[in-house]
């Protein structure tokens, strides 16, 4: 049974902040098939196309028939915990500070035997469900949990190292003027966040849904215009040390591509808001978040971007907007690498057209802002790195994997 985690006490300013360390990071190239699985929250193993055998760890040839056709495919995640051990004196700094640390050997129903991190409620001889998670060095690791739900399951010490659960944490949602920002703030509060700071540019201007946020216990409206470097610096000076999760909901959607627009003024606004806004936020909040990666129960854990799925493949009808999103996507990979020493997760939530005014002329299906808010919470709880919200985003993901050229031609309609 897992004891519920206690709400963290106010931080003693006289004590040194514990600095983040990383678990062992070296992996073979092939092993990054699991990184992809973990990023998307899937359980995938290599399966031989020759003889059908599942295999683990990552291999270059099948141990049953020597075929090299070992594709990573979704695999049944159930297994049996054969034996466990608790490491009391690990040789690596990260684990040494977190010892005792429990691991076990799991015989998967589909064949392979897997060394895994264990949830505290796993019992020797009992079934477990296996998942791939991203650890504090951003690498994929296997994690075994009991088959069913157990009390306070998400509060398990080792599980919390793999996730970015909002419970007891303080979150900054960067743009509360948008429906997505508002829904994200509300969902995070419901998920147990201690405080949700909601950025509002030009607070004197009224906005839709203002009433929903105002006066809510644990929701605090703060002045923030991401496109304005000074505004982001000022806010970071105030609350930078208590942002454990940052949800970048900054958005600027305008239709049109290149030839039907005159000049660069709209493109400049798109870049100012989305791309330079991202840079301002990263420079203001990134360094302190990275430094606070091991700062207790409410350590800093995650940065979330809400991105258009057309960051992955340009949609000419919103062509310049797609390009600004692609720039943000590329920048997110840079930020992920730079936040990695702090163990901070960088999650991108990809969405299709959202049910808001700027996509008014686009036919359904469109994504409800509420669904995006809920996706942010579930992604943080699962410790994911990539999420696709709604049917359009999921379809684009699949079509891109199947044939990028077909997707490019077909988006031109």
């Amino acid at each position, binding site marked *: 049974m897992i004891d519920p985690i206690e709400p963290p006490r106010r931080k003693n300013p006289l004590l040194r902040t514990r600095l983040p360390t990383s678990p062992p990071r070296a992996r073979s190239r092939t092993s990054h098939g699991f990184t992809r699985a973990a990023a998307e929250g899937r359980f995938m193993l290599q399966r031989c196309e020759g003889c059908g055998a599942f295999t683990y760890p990552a291999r270059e040839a099948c141990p049953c028939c020597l075929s090299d056709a070992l594709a990573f495919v979704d695999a049944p995640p159930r297994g049996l915990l054969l*034996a466990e051990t608790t490491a009391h004196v690990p040789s690596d700094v990260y684990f040494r500070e977190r010892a005792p640390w*429990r691991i076990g050997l799991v015989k998967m129903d589909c064949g392979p*035997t897997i060394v*895994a991190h264990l949830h505290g409620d796993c019992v020797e001889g009992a079934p477990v469900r296996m998942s791939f998670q991203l650890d504090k060095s951003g690498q994929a690791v296997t994690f075994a949990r009991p088959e069913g739900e157990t009390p306070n399951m998400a509060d398990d010490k080792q599980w919390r190292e793999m996730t970015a659960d909002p419970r007891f944490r303080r979150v900054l949602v960067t743009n509360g003027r948008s429906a997505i920002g508002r829904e994200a703030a509300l969902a995070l509060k419901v998920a147990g966040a201690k405080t949700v700071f909601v950025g509002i540019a030009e607070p004197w201007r009224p906005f839709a849904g203002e009433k929903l946020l105002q006066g809510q216990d644990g929701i605090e409206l703060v002045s923030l215009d991401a496109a304005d470097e000074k505004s982001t610096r000022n806010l970071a000076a105030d609350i930078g040390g208590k942002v454990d999760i940052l949800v970048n909901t900054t958005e600027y959607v305008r239709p049109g591509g290149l030839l039907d627009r005159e000049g660069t003024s709209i493109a400049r606004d798109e870049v100012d808001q989305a791309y330079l806004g991202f840079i301002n936020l990263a420079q203001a909040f990134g360094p302190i978040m990275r430094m606070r990666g091991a700062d207790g129960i409410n350590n800093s854990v995650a940065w979330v971007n809400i991105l258009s799925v057309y960051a992955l493949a340009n949609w000419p009808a919103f062509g310049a907007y797609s390009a600004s999103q692609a720039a943000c996507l590329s920048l997110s990979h840079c930020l992920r690498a730079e936040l990695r020493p702090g163990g901070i997760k960088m999650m991108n939530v990809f969405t299709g057209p959202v049910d808001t005014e700027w996509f008014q002329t686009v036919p359904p299906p469109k994504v409800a802002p509420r669904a995006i808010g809920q996706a942010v919470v579930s992604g943080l709880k699962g410790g994911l790195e990539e999420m696709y919200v709604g049917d359009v985003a999921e379809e684009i993901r699949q079509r891109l994997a199947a044939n990028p050229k077909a997707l490019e031609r077909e988006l031109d309609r």
Partner: protein
Amino acid sequence: MTTSLRTPYDGIVMAAPVTIPYVRYSIDSAQWWIGRALSALVAQAGIKVSDIDGLCVSSFTLGPDSGIGLTQHFGLCVRWLDTIPLGGASAIAALRKAARAVQARDADIVACVAGDTNHVDSFRLTLENFSRFNQDAVYPYGAGGANSSFALIARNYMRAFGVTRADVGRIAVAQRANALRNPHALMKTPLSIEQYLAARPISDPIHLFDCVMPCAGAEAFLVMRDETAASLGLPAARLLSTIERHNAFADDPMQVRGGWAMDIGELYAMAGVKPDDLDIVQTYDDYPVITMMQFEDLGFCGKGEGAEFVRQHDLTIDGDFPHNTSGGQLSVGQAGAAGAYLGLVEGLRQVLGTAGPTQVRDADLCLASGFGMINYDRGLASGAAIFAGTSR
């Protein structure tokens, strides 16, 4: 009894057992330790460096060198050279290869040597870079190293066969008693079963006295034909049989037996002896539970009877089953790949009657085994050899 179709090791002998006394930490390199062992080999055998025409080297900390770099480093001109990276099975593998080389006259005198240094950070670096499967799928899980991997094996084995820590502890306690007679053992204080049981946990059920102490050191011996030994006037032990096996029983979900179990019939058949005939046994004791497994797999008792076996026997030098007479790695220390040689070299001293304070009276027939390379979830390499002294 199984019959062996393999070519017998007629006339193949081992001589000049060398141990360079271990130290916990060394600022010297593996090359230095191996150099000391070669120097001692030459001195003890009364030969010239140029008489060595075959070299076989094992080391974890020699990088970036392998055997070839050592030939120039030490001024050796050999016509047969091997580097064996098999961890705890390196000595048996080296002996097997060297024996066939001198038998086929590809070489006349092969120096088999293993040595490792131990800098303050060596052990952690070895753990981090041990193998690809280890790097991908073991080390990132708590970084417990071999302790955690063997803890899983030990826990399963002990539960499956009703083995207690007190049973396993008998092995460690007996070896400490042996070590107190070995001036070179790093562990110099007596160990009681109560102290063994009260030790702090490292990775359950592995506790402090189940673990070897990483250290620096080197071991070596020579392999040649008996006429070579005779012409040099060297006392030598006759090699009777060997086995080697890798990745055995891959379908066992967890390791409860090593590769010995596959080949044990042949080991005794080739030597023409029975387990009861052996005077001394030197097992690979990276953990005492692995030694218990070897007692079963090497034919001293049935599977699952290891605990009862150690309860029924006295494993000390003066006991009815003299085992790991130098104190083994558990009490002497584990000098990297030299740990593989420790039992074999001590066994050689025993059958040659030169073991000094740890000498077993009338020891003539010895079995030494090796075990190594926990690549992922189990030790992959196993081997064993039987050899006899001059009186047989």
